[in-house]
């Protein structure tokens, strides 16, 4: 219990998030006056180093933005480059891309659910400590994660920075026989995913609700991973090519990082809970049933319960992968030809990465040299909403002591599975600011 009116909560190195960041919450006169989710990873200048590179290099280069969701980067880059060149890949190649995305969703969500997030609910510092008392549960999580990686291994050659994806399609698509053992693995994974939904549904969730506008790609009839059109839960919709007119990144006075907002509307949220709100009716029957049994309704506005949504999405991705494998016919051609545009051209691509909408734009010269690039990753978009949650979450819990409150803040950040490695390309002043703070 504490009654101090002025306090500063700091976490110099956030743990169990992807990449490195810091948090600072300032309380003055008993009011929360400042909240910062600081990103101090050094910038890597992807948009700059893409200039002058060949258009066919975009998938392999941008995969290196993020080791957690390289497939999302590869597929988004392919779509944007193909758009610039006026090529649409046939459905049989689209199917394989979706299967690859399923692998990444399963693997990335299992990583977050079991290794990064669940320890918060059960009171452990990490998965290793959790495994002392819950060995079989942790083993189930690792098996589920491995099943996702098995898809990436088979289709991509390796789970991190797969080698088999190219603009226009694949280097070597699998045969039907190649996929048979994978289906066996995924049938076991379906049971594990179902058990996961039931397991996380039983956790204790703090009372909390946000009112962020929710943004996701929507493709009627399908719980989309690799296509669709941006929609929000408040009725806004726009084509992918208009993304930068509607999503504005700018600076706000109290913060030193660029913040994204919807033009004329304000902060918003992308990711699993946004996808669920806008697309739950298109989940596989098994996933939809499990969601209802887990107590999810039409949307989920308690970010602590996002772990349940992630578990439902994992089950859906396993189901979807099994369906894609069952109906699989190798594509007529491994990759369709994508010649350089022959004129100056701009292409756009957006997909649902595990953490939300990922947008790519490339400008190409007639011979296919990249002249400009823009990447908007999910965590950059969610940062203002995460900070808003923190502000309101802390304000309601000022009676906790610093240690407890700081731990709760870290939990609140982890709800969003922030991928700071992805977000760093947009980092602005934080390096200087963190440096100053460290010397202080």
């Amino acid at each position, binding site marked *: 219990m504490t009654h101090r009116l002025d306090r500063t909560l700091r976490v110099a190195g956030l743990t169990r998030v992807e990449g490195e960041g810091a948090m600072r919450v300032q309380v003055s006169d008993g009011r929360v006056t400042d909240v910062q989710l600081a990103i101090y990873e050094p910038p890597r200048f992807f948009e700059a180093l893409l200039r002058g590179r060949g258009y066919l290099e975009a998938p392999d280069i941008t995969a290196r933005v993020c080791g957690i969701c390289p497939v999302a980067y590869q597929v988004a880059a392919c779509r944007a480059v193909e758009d610039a060149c006026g090529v649409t890949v046939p459905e049989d190649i689209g199917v394989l891309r979706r299967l690859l995305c399923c692998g990444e969703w399963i693997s990335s969500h299992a990583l977050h659910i079991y*290794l990064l997030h669940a320890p918060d609910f059960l009171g452990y510092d990490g998965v290793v400590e959790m495994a002392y008392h819950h060995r079989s549960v942790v083993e189930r999580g690792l098996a589920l994660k491995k099943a996702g990686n098995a898809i990436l291994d088979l289709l991509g050659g390796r789970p991190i920075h797969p080698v088999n994806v190219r603009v226009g399609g694949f280097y070597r698509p699998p045969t039907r026989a190649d996929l048979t053992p994978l289906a066996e693995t995924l049938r076991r994974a379906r049971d594990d995913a179902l058990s996961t939904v039931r397991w996380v549904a039983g956790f204790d969730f703090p009372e909390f609700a946000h009112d962020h506008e929710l943004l996701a790609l929507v493709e009627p009839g399908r719980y989309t991973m690799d296509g669709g059109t941006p929609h929000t839960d408040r009725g806004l919709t726009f084509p992918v090519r208009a993304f930068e007119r509607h999503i504005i990144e700018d600076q706000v006075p109290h913060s030193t990082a660029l913040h994204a907002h919807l033009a004329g509307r304000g902060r918003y949220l992308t990711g699993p809970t946004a996808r669920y709100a806008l697309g739950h009716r298109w989940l596989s029957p098994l996933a939809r049933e499990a969601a209802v049994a887990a107590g999810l309704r039409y949307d989920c506005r308690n970010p602590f319960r996002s772990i349940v949504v992630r578990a439902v999405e994992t089950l859906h991705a396993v189901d979807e992968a099994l369906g894609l494998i069952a109906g699989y016919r190798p594509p007529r051609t491994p990759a369709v030809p994508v010649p350089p545009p022959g004129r100056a051209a701009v292409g756009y691509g957006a997909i649902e990465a595990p953490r939300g909408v990922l947008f790519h734009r490339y400008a190409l010269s007639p011979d296919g040299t990249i002249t400009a690039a823009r990447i908007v990753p999910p965590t950059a978009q969610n940062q203002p909403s995460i900070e808003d949650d923190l502000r309101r979450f802390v304000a309601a819990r000022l009676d906790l002591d610093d240690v407890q409150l700081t731990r709760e803040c870290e939990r609140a950040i982890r709800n969003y599975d922030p991928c700071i490695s992805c977000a760093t390309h947009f980092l602005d002043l934080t390096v200087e600011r963190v440096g100053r703070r460290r010397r202080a």
Partner: protein
Amino acid sequence: MAATATLAVWKFASCDGCQLSLLDCEDELLSIAGAVRIGYFLEASSTVVPGPYDVSLVEGSITTPSDVQRLWRMREQSRLLVAVGACATAGGIQALRNLADIAEFRALVYAKPEYLSTLDKSEPVSAHVPVDLELRGCPIDRRQLVDTLSALLAGRRPDLPTHSVCFECKARGTPCPLVTDGVPCLGPVTQAGCGAICPVYGRGCYGCFGPAAAANVAALVPRLAELGMSEVDIQRVFRTFNTAAPALAEAIR
């Protein structure tokens, strides 16, 4: 090394993929965690045990003045320092800035570039501190990582290949892309360790493990040109993930 050897995992400029490789060892993760004490691994645990550490895995390249200071503090606390991945061993993709005007790069990406603290170059760990061992690759190979940790825990030096990817293709029985299919391939000059994945998928090696010890890059270049690669394509393929590797920097100027 004692049964309670401590392990630390550190990150500099990188995509997180190489430390994720450790978490991707689903079958071995709990045994590894049982054999070592994880002293510092922010991505996996909130527990931080103060150094010194027996083994430090270092991911990422060195790109800011504060990175350099942090790296030195980390080196002082580490008995064995293992640089993991192309960023830590050769500057990574972000070392492309070494060939460009960094001021222009900053201005292209950031609205207020004057506030960024960035070195002119993205450099491997070994440019700043002594390194005991390097694991190549973008990303590193999981099996190599597990083998290396097992060897270090057993007190022996891991057996890391210095020959080219060609040996791995032969071992797997993969037909040579260069000879059989006329597909440009960097296998002859690239260090083994990945398991020669790309040729299995009908793709030439693109060199993500960096140059092999005795790589004769200059001899491969005319062959790549014969197979239809333009001068600019050849320059690009050598200047991607291991740009700051000395053997490449000299051959492709």
